[in-house]
């Protein structure tokens, strides 16, 4: 028996430190309050402490760490977007991802797989070419490939998709990857915790005090805090928090559902996405197939699941991979996606001084976790929008200057 384990057995106290420090009560004041203990909020806390030396920070989480969309996404990381703003932003994120595990000293199971966006129609192929050219211009590996390349990478695929949606080609993005999403939240959380950031779970924000257009404090179910800076990173709850400070936004919330199959032997290396069939699929290290589809078609602010979802998604899965007909679905779940009209996020300063927003991340937020943390920590520390996020500000709607990313949403939501 290893010595470390024996020490555990003989000691009354745990000799190993816990993942996070427990704080019994909130302090009366912090320099920065971050609402939302998901990947984005914890990453911002981590970079505030590490890069900007601001450690008098608390992260408030209503539930548990990473229990929102951080733990509900399908873990895909890519940067093959459509607009220059989007491409530059996500590319920086992919670069940050690659050495995050060393940064944290924690295995993120970052696995580079390659990412195919399948095109079943001429229109989809045209968008693929457009995306490939924009990507190449910014030095990102992206190219249009023929059906034979898809067949080679995923030999089990039926290229005719049951005869009604033949694959004409695909946008291939070699840096496409998957990672273990819980570990991302834990890694950022632990890194922030070690540097003095307080993480308070099961702490719900009930109100935000604004005096003369400036943030002065936050009211929670565990007491009031005075602070001059609040960062809101709460995904599907964004409209509720914005109501507390009286900001109107274009965000609307629809559930996004996903499911996994029972574990099977490794047979699928790349990540496949089909816009026409509304499917994205990858195989996890455990062997489960992780599958997602398009948004639910109407507004709901809860994480309920429906039966139509696995039914419809399974039908499309069988079009692509008929041999899966005997594989069982193991579980399904949903997340609340905070959608925007142009499929780009809303980030940066807001009309309320000291209130910073990192929202509108809809169905595409996980892959951006590191770069959101970096850019939002910069924005909060300097009270100035980081250069990479100037295309994503809230006032782009008032000025009719949208950042159209719809063409690059992984499936045609």
């Amino acid at each position, binding site marked *: 028996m290893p010595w470390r384990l024996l020490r555990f057995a003989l000691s009354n106290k745990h000799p190993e430190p816990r993942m996070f420090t427990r704080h019994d009560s909130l302090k009366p004041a912090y320099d920065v309050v971050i609402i939302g203990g998901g990947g984005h909020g914890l990453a911002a806390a981590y970079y505030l402490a590490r890069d900007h030396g601001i450690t008098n920070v608390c992260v408030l989480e209503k539930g548990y760490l990473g229990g929102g969309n951080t733990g509900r996404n399908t873990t895909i990381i890519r940067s093959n977007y459509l607009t220059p703003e989007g491409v530059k932003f996500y590319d920086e994120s992919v670069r940050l991802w690659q050495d995050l595990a060393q940064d944290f000293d924690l295995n993120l199971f970052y696995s580079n797989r390659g990412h195919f966006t399948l095109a079943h129609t001429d229109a989809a192929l045209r968008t693929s070419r457009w995306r490939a050219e924009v990507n190449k211009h910014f030095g990102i590996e992206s190219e249009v490939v023929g059906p034979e390349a898809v067949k080679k990478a995923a030999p089990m695929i039926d290229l005719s998709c049951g005869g009604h949606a033949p694959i004409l080609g695909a946008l291939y993005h070699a840096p496409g990857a998957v990672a273990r999403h819980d570990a991302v939240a834990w890694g950022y959380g632990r890194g922030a915790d070690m540097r003095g950031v307080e993480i308070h779970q099961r702490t719900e924000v009930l109100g935000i005090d604004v005096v003369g257009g400036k943030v002065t404090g936050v009211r929670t179910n565990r007491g009031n805090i005075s602070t001059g800076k609040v960062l809101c990173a709460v995904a599907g709850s*964004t*409209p*509720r928090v*914005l*109501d507390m400070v009286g900001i*109107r*936004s*274009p*965000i*609307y*919330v629809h559930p996004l559902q996903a499911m996994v199959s029972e574990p099977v032997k490794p047979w699928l290396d790349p990540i496949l996405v089909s816009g026409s069939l509304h499917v994205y699929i990858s195989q996890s290290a455990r062997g489960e197939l992780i599958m997602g589809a398009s948004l639910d*078609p*109407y*507004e*709901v*602010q*809860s994480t*309920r699941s429906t039966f*139509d979802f696995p039914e419809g998604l399974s039908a499309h899965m069988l079009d692509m991979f008929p041999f899966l007909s005997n594989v069982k679905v193991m579980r399904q779940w949903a997340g609340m996606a*905070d959608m925007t*009209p142009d499929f780009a996020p809303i980030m940066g300063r807001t009309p309320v001084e000291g209130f910073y927003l990192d929202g509108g991340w809809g169905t595409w937020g996980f892959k951006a976790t590191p770069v959101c943390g970096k850019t939002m920590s910069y924005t909060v520390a300097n009270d100035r929008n980081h250069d990479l996020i100037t295309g994503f500000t809230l006032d782009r*709607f*008032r*000025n*009719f200057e949208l950042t159209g990313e719809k063409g690059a949403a992984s499936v045609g939501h």
Partner: protein
Amino acid sequence: MTCPVNGPRAISEFAYGGEIRPMPDPTTCSDDAWADYIFNRNGSPGVKREWWCHTPSNTWFVAERDTARDVVLRTYLYAEES
């Protein structure tokens, strides 16, 4: 969901048309008011009055729905508004 004309039908027969919102007059309102109308939404949960369409019969009607629980409280034709 219950269509006011065709009675209870499967939810897959219905299309969602968004919350009912008054449109400002585009010829007289300010750019800000127009941008607010076309982009901004009330994204918080609550009981909302929404447009829905029963697609096989193309019947547009109003539904009062609790968007936090996804429960339809009442449906009626726009003309029958009470």
